[in-house]
């Protein structure tokens, strides 16, 4: 196109082209996302509220959800997933928060090494985590070998109990949790902590009055990411968890693949959407509330 020498004569043609060309360039990935994410999700929500009526018609009904929540096995799986989420998130915060605070304020070689270790699980695929878990904590695993070596009885293995997925998911979720908490700790300055220490505040007071209030949104992001991650999980619960109660991931897979109950699998999927949406909304609401509060505070 360089033969069009005059920039003036070129401008209209280019601007007409430059409006359509970029849209063409982005069309394929955008349409693919529409076709395989937005549409299936929207369609699934609608289909779960439709049940076959009389004469081959379909009528609006909450029968699918009544069936799910009326079935004790399904409800057990659902509450088991909520339990796993609560326990995993609590453990992640209990381990992750001290680590993040340490990494935020400590300097030197040891914190650098600790940070490398914390980030390490990012580079290990779930399937290998599951295998390593079984070889370490499973029956006759490394822990049993060590216990035997020092003359202690075998431990009760968490493998194939509800604690199996919890341990696997904590292992898997630690890097992201610490990263999110670290970004929240960016709001906590060393002078603020030092000032509190100067007036005699203990570490618990500093944590409760200085650090945690500034990390509210980061804690909520951590929470909603964990809810999303755990309700999305399949490999770790499938390989490490008990046959019953299952977590939603393996339960959906079995309903779809083994029982071939497509409608029920879809209902279960929409229920996981709803839970994650709830926590997503909680997060957005808290951000919005925080903004209004600080705006009002600024005015008064």
């Amino acid at each position, binding site marked *: 196109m360089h033969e069009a020498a005059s920039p003036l004569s070129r401008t209209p043609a280019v601007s007409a082209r430059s409006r359509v060309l970029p*849209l063409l360039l982005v069309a394929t*990935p955008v349409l693919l996302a529409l076709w395989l994410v937005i549409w299936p999700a929207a369609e699934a929500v609608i289909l779960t509220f439709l049940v076959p009526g009389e004469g081959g018609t379909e009528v609006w009904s909450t029968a699918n959800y009544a069936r799910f929540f009326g079935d004790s096995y399904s409800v057990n799986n659902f509450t088991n997933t909520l339990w796993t989420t609560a326990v995993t998130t609590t453990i992640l915060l209990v381990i992750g928060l001290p680590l993040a605070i340490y990494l935020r304020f400590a300097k030197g070689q*040891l914190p650098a090494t*600790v940070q490398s270790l914390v980030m390490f699980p990012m580079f290990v*695929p779930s399937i290998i985590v599951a295998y390593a878990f079984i070889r370490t904590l499973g029956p006759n695993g*490394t822990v049993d070998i060590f216990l035997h070596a020092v003359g202690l009885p075998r431990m009760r293995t968490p493998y194939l109990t509800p604690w199996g997925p919890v341990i696997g998911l904590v292992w898997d979720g*630690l890097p992201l949790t610490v990263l999110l908490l670290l970004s929240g700790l960016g709001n906590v300055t060393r002078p603020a902590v030092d000032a509190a220490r100067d007036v005699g505040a203990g570490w618990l007071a500093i944590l409760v009055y200085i650090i945690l209030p500034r990390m509210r949104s980061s804690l909520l992001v951590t929470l909603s990411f964990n809810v999303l991650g755990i309700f*999305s999980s399949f490999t770790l619960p499938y390989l490490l968890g008990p046959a019953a109660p299952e977590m939603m991931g393996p339960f959906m897979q079995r309903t779809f693949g083994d029982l071939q109950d497509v409608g029920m699998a*879809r209902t279960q999927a929409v229920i996981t*959407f709803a839970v994650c949406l709830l926590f997503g909304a909680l997060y957005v609401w808290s951000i919005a509330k925080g903004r209004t509060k600080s705006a009002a505070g600024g005015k008064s």
Partner: protein
Amino acid sequence: MSLLSISPPTPSLLTRLLRRTGGADWFGLLAFIFLASTIILPLVVVGIWAFAEVWRYPAVLPQRFGLGFWGEMLARRDVWAALTTSLELSFTVTALSMLICLPAAYAFGRMEFPFRNTLFLSFLTLRAFPKFGLLIVIATIFLNLGLVGTFAGVVLIQLVDTLMYMVWIPAAAFQSVDRRLEEAAQDAGATPLQVFWHVTLPQSLPTIAAAVILTFVGTFYETEGAWLIGAPTVTTMPILMISFINNQLVIQYGAVLSLMLWVPSFVALMFARRVLGGDAIARGLGG
């Protein structure tokens, strides 16, 4: 997000650390011991199992080391079939993803057009749904389209998974190219294509390469989509590993497979990590 470099802890490093901290950093030391024993030790155990020919409970170390199970593993036809399938899938998905995402990334990074921001952010919806539930509802659609149990179905489902990072990371790379260099090349008489090929592309290449590596490794280890859509005809490496774990065939099989597959991907990811932040990698791997 700048992460500190990851280096394997060695005894000399540990003594250096102790000397530096002078025993004052007790929390750091405890954290180090805790993390090393819970994060590194299980992987070391896998490494030992891979080279253990005989390891009977309750011996602390294997009775006999050797490469016997590596030979056995490499002679198995299902391993080669799964490896071929996994590589075919990863190459196909990565190539398709590059083909459709890189031009889009260029448009997002460098062009002005209506709904640019909305469309760019629309890729976030890919991560807004719990993945397995989304896979289930996609699978119900694929069931009607006859795509369940087909190679094409698995390609499509894995392709969707790569969209966000193959658009977002390269878009940022194209955006950060030094415009003055491009203008200088233009002034010197280069055609737009020449400018793109000789100035824009080389500058954004490391970041794009990192995104491609993330996509490739992420696709190689993608388990859920391949399992749900591909079963029972499409067997990838992770799915083969699941069956090894569930059937408890021979303990060493899983260890050899883990080590064989993980070491190359680990090296590739280390390279990607040097170029990108750790955060991007966490998401790229599916968290």
